[in-house]
């Protein structure tokens, strides 16, 4: 059960559309296509025809242990993982569309980044039940000195500029995306 109605409102604020309607101009969820081309093979992968999408993790790297990771050569397991990744990318697309909309309205990078940090924190906290919240508040206090999560200022310290704070939350892991077929590797130049 969501614990913070404001977080749901915040997420809807990305699209400005009623619940259930298409968001971000990407079409319906079924049509949503986040596919992209990555310029090189991610460092933790190796070309391997056993992989459903032609790559497998290098032994000893983050996505290699199986289980708990999916068996990247099993179409059913990879399809399930791909569904999770598509949901994640949908969230990223909504966030990027919200940022673009704010920029079109003339908002400064700092104003956008400050609001985005607040939305991200609320969205994250909304995943926990009332019973679980004290644990995450305590962790946030220990990690960030703020029970709601990282502050804009602390992220500015890590990323150097408001634009980079915005960008930091919308990055995607290319290795995971290649394994789930969302990203394809550009052909090597001869």
């Amino acid at each position: 059960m969501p614990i913070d109605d404001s977080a749901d409102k915040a997420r809807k604020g990305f699209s400005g559309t009623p619940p259930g309607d298409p968001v971000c101009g990407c079409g319906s969820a079924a049509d949503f296509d986040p596919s992209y081309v990555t310029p090189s093979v991610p460092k933790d992968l190796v070309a391997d025809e056993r992989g459903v999408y032609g790559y497998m993790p290098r032994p000893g790297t983050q996505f290699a242990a199986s289980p708990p990771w999916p068996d990247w050569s099993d179409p059913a397991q990879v399809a399930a993982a791909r569904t999770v990744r598509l949901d994640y990318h949908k969230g990223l697309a909504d966030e990027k569309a919200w940022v673009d909309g704010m920029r079109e309205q003339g908002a400064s990078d700092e104003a956008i980044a400050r609001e985005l940090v607040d939305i991200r924190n609320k969205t994250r906290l909304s995943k926990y039940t009332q019973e679980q919240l004290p644990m995450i508040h305590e962790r946030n206090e220990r990690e960030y000195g703020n029970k709601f999560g990282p502050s804009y200022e602390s992220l500015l310290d890590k990323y150097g500029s408001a634009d980079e704070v915005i960008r930091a939350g919308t990055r995607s892991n290319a290795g995971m995306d290649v394994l789930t077929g969302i990203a394809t590797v550009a052909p090597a130049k001869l």
Partner: protein
Amino acid sequence: MSRQILLKRARGPRETVLFDVATGRSAPAAVPPDARMHGTQATVAEQSFALYADNGELWFQWNERRWALASPDLHLSYAHDVAAALTTFTAGDRSITYPAWWRGDPAFDLLVPEQDEQEDYLAYVVAVWSDPPLQARLRDAWA
């Protein structure tokens, strides 16, 4: 003579620290809020880590040892042992294993590794190492 630079503490309450480049040790610095800082420092499993700009380069430092982040000789890795809820970070021939940030966290999703960068300073270091354009922007911002 030791050389000290101003960094921001990246874990815990936000504060500016004086970082000793020779030793990797740091201590709170009494400086004006607008004092120019050159990167970040964090303590993970009682070890000191820092990422900062110095002499036109971006550096990663683990206790007393530092590497140019753009060096082709530097290899970093970051991986979880999910069953044991442990994380192992490796830089060159050094390695450290510590409790995973998501230990006991019911909302953690293995298939969203992007969370690591937000929650674990060493995953953030690896993300910067993996992204040369971001390195260039940080080098400029922290110069």
